[in-house]
């Protein structure tokens, strides 16, 4: 019969992790269980195939990109720390958090959530969504259902509207500005049950 504290202790640096991410002990345990369930071979880390085994994710048009967001460039495995830190982006925004001037921005802030979404588009991580990158995302989401010309015209128009400095690419600031009225907290948050 395992006890809560002994399960928590099995997770290295769990205190630091909880502070950084804002997850409660109960959440950490559930996420750890999920991590272990995904890690079918018990290696202690996840590889892209482990994510690929999730059927509903395989069906998602941008599933590959979401999986890619977990892996730092050059790394082929995800450990539990990184797993939790990425998922922390999707915690609902803490409305009651006092604004301390010197503390780092919480992972689940509105800005960081936008940054996460931005990186889904900006695969080469140069800070801008180029026309090509936009086209690739559109292709992923629409597949064979639309023609090349339609894709191009959609991409053109999107850039036209969002690109304020006329450099034919969308920077993070432009991205943020074009989505300022969207309720990011609701749309990019997942409610974790107790």
């Amino acid at each position: 019969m395992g006890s809560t504290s002994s399960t928590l202790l099995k997770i290295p640096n769990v205190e630091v992790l909880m502070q950084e991410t804002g997850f409660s002990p109960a959440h950490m345990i559930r996420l750890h269980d999920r991590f272990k369930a995904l890690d079918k071979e018990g290696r202690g880390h996840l590889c892209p195939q482990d994510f690929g085994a999730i059927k509903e994710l395989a069906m998602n048009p941008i599933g590959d990109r979401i999986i890619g967001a977990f892996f730092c460039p050059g790394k082929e495995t995800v450990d539990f720390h990184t797993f939790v830190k990425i998922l922390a982006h999707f915690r609902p925004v803490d409305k009651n958090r006092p604004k301390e001037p010197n503390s780092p921005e919480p992972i689940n802030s509105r800005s960081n959530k936008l940054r996460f979404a931005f990186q889904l588009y900006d695969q080469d991580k140069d800070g801008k969504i180029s026309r090509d990158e936009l086209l690739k995302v559109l292709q992923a989401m629409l597949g064979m259902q639309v023609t090349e010309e339609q894709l191009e015209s959609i991409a053109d128009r999107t850039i036209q509207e969002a690109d304020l400095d006329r450099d034919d690419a969308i920077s993070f600031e432009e991205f943020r500005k074009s989505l300022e009225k969207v309720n990011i907290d609701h749309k990019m948050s997942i409610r974790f049950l107790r």
Partner: protein
Amino acid sequence: MEGAWEIAFVLFQVWLSIVVGLIVLPAMFGVSLGFTDIYIRVLVKTLEWATLRIQRGQKEQPTLPSQSANGIIEKDDGSMEEEIGELRRSHPKNLVGGDFTMCDAFYFCKKGIENIVEDQVTQRFTSEELASWNLLTRTNNNFRYISVRLTIIWGLGVFIRYCILLPLRITLAVIGLSWLVIGTTIVGLLPSSNAKNWLSDLVHITCYRICARGLSATIRYHNKENRPKKGGICVANHTSPIDIVILANDGCYAMVGQVHGGLMGVIQRSMVLSCPHVWFERSEMKDRHAVAKRLKDHIADKTKLPILIFPEGTCINNTSVMMFKKGSFEIGRTIYPVAIKYDPQFGDAFWNSAKYNIVSYLLRMMTSWAIVCNVWYLPPMTRQDGEDAVQFANRVKSAIAHQGGLVDLSWDGGLKREKVKESLKEEQQKMYSSMIVGQQGRLMLSILI
């Protein structure tokens, strides 16, 4: 030494005659001496006490996480159109007829992350989580030490289950299966006649009744008037190999399955001697038409027993019903659906074939408290004109899920082992593109405005 062996032998004989006299014989005649009822009642009281004790313990120590039997996250159940529509409503652009906006990706992103944290399919292939502990170590996920009394009761439970119940159940299982093999072989020697059929039914039912006692199974049958008739097809949801014992306790069926070797093979061969079952060689299974023809021939003969099929094709954890394979729904028009729901409080009947082989599974079954389940016979359903096999299958599946209180899923049970088909991703893309593009003309029009 001699004396010791003699005493052991005498004890064994006494034991055997008690078992036969008090359990096997009443079982064969369908008479209950009430032991199982008393056992179940004591068990229920004990488990209730244990639950209250755990709840009290949780209140006193608030750091204990209370188990959420429903999962980790709360999911939004809106459709793709609703969710993306909401995303766009806050967007300053006035969009007529749909168009792409960069926030559309948020919908897919959120769905993807939700699925990483918790997905519908993997859940169904692991055992159901209980809201409270039922004193079996195997279901103990996060229940920690609460009190001395609870631990003692748990220890007592282990002793009872492994040292008293397990040997008893193994004895019963051995008696039951040997009786099946011997009985059917003897009946097989008789010439075909009504008497032979009657005897064959008797042998089969008595054997399954003994096996049911061997699992301390308490089965409640509902709507017996809808029981499958000869020449019909009986269709049920699949949780474990024990389903066969559960159903065959109340009726005789012709089994359908693959030919096995070893002990299973012996049982299969002897069963066929007394009444026709449909056993397929592995090579035959590949030829769908040959399979369909054999089944059709069987049900065409109205003197043969109804065939029993599990259309899910694999064991699911009894919280949901997965896609029914259409093959069984193509061979005949009248289907008798049956819903089986196990009560997980007394023992988890689900066979996770990836985790346990059949022997360890049976051992787990025999060391559980009991198997308690409900069986509902649903009124026969026929394929309507203009309905194809897939739609008919889905209709039957919904009826079974509804009756058994199970979730009706359209996922294929085969996904346990296979990859997702590309066509499912295409469906998502189609749905999304219809929001973007709609008809050809609309896209061009919004550019001109």
